């Protein structure tokens, strides 16, 4: 081969290898970047007045007078919106008018009876009023504007009729006028269509602003408040102003999403200027404010993680990992000490080493099966505990899982203690045991701690082993070692896949997993730092 070709090949090779490392860095950024970016919005975000209201209601956080002040400020704009919607609703849904006309009629007949009118006179006047009532009901039902106006005109002719003069029934005319006004700018042929669109708008407005103050409080906490975050509120605003629908452009082609401005959808009606109004006064309605919601890490969450934080999950993860460490630490260190200090290369040692390697390779889900079959069904019941998944079973399973990590790390740490330390101690007459406890172990301790931290991070992230041995998606903070617990790892799974409500609150989905990832990365960073320090010390002097 020519020298040049060889040279070029060499260069290409270097670039390709560098590219593979670069690719890895890109992957790391692609995986972590969006996760951390979106997850941080669970803690740092712009909150609306609804958020502050919720915090006050649920946790008594914030200044009550200040928040009440904010609420009354936004109430002004909200009332206007509600007023608009209600006014429009009357034209759509004439139940309101029908009810009123019925009520007037009822009051009218009561009034007559009260005034002592009886017999034919009573039935004659009631019959007349009933006639008007029927006409009006017909007008409310009708979709033909001309017909309605004619009916109303007809009714108005009876104004001042002696049969109903000076009674409740005169209110019929006021009602008829009101109805005439309502339908003035109203395309009645679109009533059905409007009804549907209005329902959509109403539910969106409810999601944005929360239930009205005169409504009964919804049972679910997630329904009690409007959009608590500005990003969610903005999304809703977009949905309120723009209606999205899938339109078939031509047959055989895929549907295309089309945006329709709702102002045009409601053009010519009372509701037309509602949408620009909401958009213009959006800040005054929501009163956004930058919030650092550090309580995310201690708060419990409402059902489906809709509101609140990951407090119980963090607590559960810590309990499980620390407990697992308590079990595995002595076992790991003693095993490592034996492997380094006492064992000679023979059959026993080979078997032990092979088992450690096997243990390291066993799939985590098999650990889960083992935990279920052994700790849950046999081990804990044997000592009189309940035979059900619990924290103790889960942490024991995790301890077995992390045993090889612990042994390897401790072994390495003990091995890296300079021989001179040991020899000096032995030379001074200390026994082997004493030498190990007083000299080797303290010198190896930082390395062992590094191993502990790495095992902790491994244990904290494991999900499969605790699926059947002690993790649960819901439930209160664990009261004893024999209850199940929520954990960050299982919670991340559940909020991403298991729970439908989670999809509504992406910031909480990402927040949960980022809490887990950051916890683990922090642990790892500490371990890496520690190790670098030890490395320097052992190398240095």
């Amino acid at each position: 081969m020519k020298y040049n070709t060889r040279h070029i090949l060499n260069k290409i090779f270097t670039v390709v290898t560098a590219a593979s490392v670069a690719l890895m860095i890109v992957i790391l950024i692609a995986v972590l970047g969006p996760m951390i970016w979106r997850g941080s919005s669970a803690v740092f975000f712009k909150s609306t007045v609804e958020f502050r209201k919720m915090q006050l209601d649920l946790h008594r956080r914030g200044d009550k007078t200040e928040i009440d002040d904010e609420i009354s400020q936004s109430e002004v704009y909200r009332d206007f919106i509600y007023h608009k919607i209600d006014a429009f609703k009357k034209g759509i849904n004439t139940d309101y008018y029908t009810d009123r006309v019925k009520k007037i009629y009822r009051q009218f007949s009561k009034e007559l009876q009260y005034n002592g009118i009886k017999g034919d006179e009573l039935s004659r006047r009631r019959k007349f009023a009933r006639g008007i009532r029927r006409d009006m009901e017909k007008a409310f039902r009708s979709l033909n504007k001309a017909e309605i106006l004619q009916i109303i005109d007809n009714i108005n002719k009876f104004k001042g009729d002696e049969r109903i003069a000076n009674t409740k029934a005169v209110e019929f005319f006021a009602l008829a006028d009101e109805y005439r006004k309502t339908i003035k700018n109203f395309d009645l042929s679109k009533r059905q269509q409007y009804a549907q669109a209005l329902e959509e708008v109403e539910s969106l407005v409810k999601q944005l602003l929360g239930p009205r103050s005169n409504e009964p409080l919804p049972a679910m906490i997630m329904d009690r408040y409007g959009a608590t975050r500005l990003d969610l509120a903005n999304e809703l605003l977009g949905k309120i102003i723009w209606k999205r629908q899938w339109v078939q452009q031509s047959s055989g082609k895929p549907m295309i999403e089309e945006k329709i401005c709702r102002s045009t959808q409601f053009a010519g009606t009372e509701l037309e200027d509602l949408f620009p109004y909401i958009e213009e006064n959006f800040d005054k309605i929501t009163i956004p404010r930058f919030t650092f919601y550090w309580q995310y890490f201690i708060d419990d969450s409402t059902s489906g993680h809709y509101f609140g934080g990951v407090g119980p999950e963090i607590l559960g993860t810590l309990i499980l990992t620390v407990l697992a460490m308590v079990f595995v630490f002595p076992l790991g260190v003693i095993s490592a000490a034996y492997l380094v200090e006492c064992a000679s290369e023979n059959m026993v040692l080979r078997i032990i080493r092979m088992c450690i390697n096997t243990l390291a390779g066993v799939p985590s889900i098999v650990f889960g099966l083992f935990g279920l079959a052994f700790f849950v069904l046999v081990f804990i019941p044997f000592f009189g505990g309940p035979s059900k998944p619990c924290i103790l079973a889960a942490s024991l399973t995790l301890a077995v899982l992390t045993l090889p990590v612990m042994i390897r790390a401790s072994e390495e740490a003990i091995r890296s203690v300079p021989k001179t330390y040991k020899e000096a101690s032995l030379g001074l007459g200390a026994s082997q045991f004493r030498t190990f406890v007083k000299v080797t172990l303290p010198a190896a301790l930082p390395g062992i701690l590094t191993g502990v931290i790495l095992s902790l991070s491994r244990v904290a992230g494991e999900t499969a082993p605790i699926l059947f041995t002690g993790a649960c998606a819901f439930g209160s903070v664990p009261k004893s070692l024999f209850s199940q617990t929520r954990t960050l790892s299982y919670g991340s799974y559940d909020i991403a896949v298991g729970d439908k409500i989670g999809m509504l609150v992406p910031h909480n989905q990402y927040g949960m997993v980022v809490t887990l990832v950051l916890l683990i990365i922090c642990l790892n960073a500490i371990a890496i730092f520690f190790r670098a320090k030890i490395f320097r010390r052992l190398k240095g002097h």
Partner: protein
Amino acid sequence: MENTITNRETEPVADPSGLSLVLTPLEDLTGFLLHHLGRLLLLLITSSSVIAVFLIFFFVIRESMPFLKEHDMVEFLTSKQWYPEADTPKFGALSMIVGSAYVTVASLIFAVPVGILAAVFLSDIVSFRIRELVKPVIEILAAIPSVAYGFFAVLVLAPWLQNKFGFTTGTNALNASIVLSIMALPTIISVAEDSISTVGRELREASYGLGATRFETIFKVVLPTAHSGIIAAVILGMMRAIGETMVVWMASGNAAQIPTPWWDLSQSVRTMTASIAGEMGETVKGSDHYYSLFATGVLLLVLIFALNIISEYFLVSAKKKLGKI
């Protein structure tokens, strides 16, 4: 016992503080016994990992025994019919075995070249300082928990794949393979790098001295010498991919089917691990379905055990080979 004075000839010298440097026979005996008992105790504690492995095998196999006794193993391994909850339940795990193999192989196709090239880059091409900078990246990739990778697969990668390539579903074999390969990378890189850097300086320098370029040196000298270690690295990466649960459960779509045509990565598959994780929560304890999941676990365990022995063989042979040189 080498550190105690055991000279019986001299009279015990009375120490002013009342301590004697010379041990009485009883003290000597207890010391001897304590030493050996202590060692025995340590050995017992150390064998806890042996006991753990034994217990894992024993209990997982014990729970699967009712299934293995009653059902035909051949059917279990060769039938595609997996209807554990039907009126006449059928337990054919073939589609799950194939699913596991499918995503594993697909992930290795990506992970092995990238992993080995990255290992070469780190061991042979860049300076120590850059290597120290890249190492934490690998460590963090290895440390990210599998559930976080699964989360990424479902909420980030799946919608992206669906929009970009127009797949019917974003949670498919391709998605699972991509994420599994990311997870297998750190294992492959660290083991391969270890074995590549243990290839001696002398070999490399001899090759350079003969006028070979770096590319030729690495491809014709270093990699062939380190091949056992690299094979071990690939097998360890494979073990990581086969045993992985959360990612495949979340990202592979969980349809118990064998993709047709076989190369179509955009179809959903289901792996053994995912079927254990997904179905165990819904079974009644003591039902055939429950035992069959343990049988799947046994299958997985045997597979991993075999792979482990193979990788061990290659690692040992790598050590021997490099030891000789």
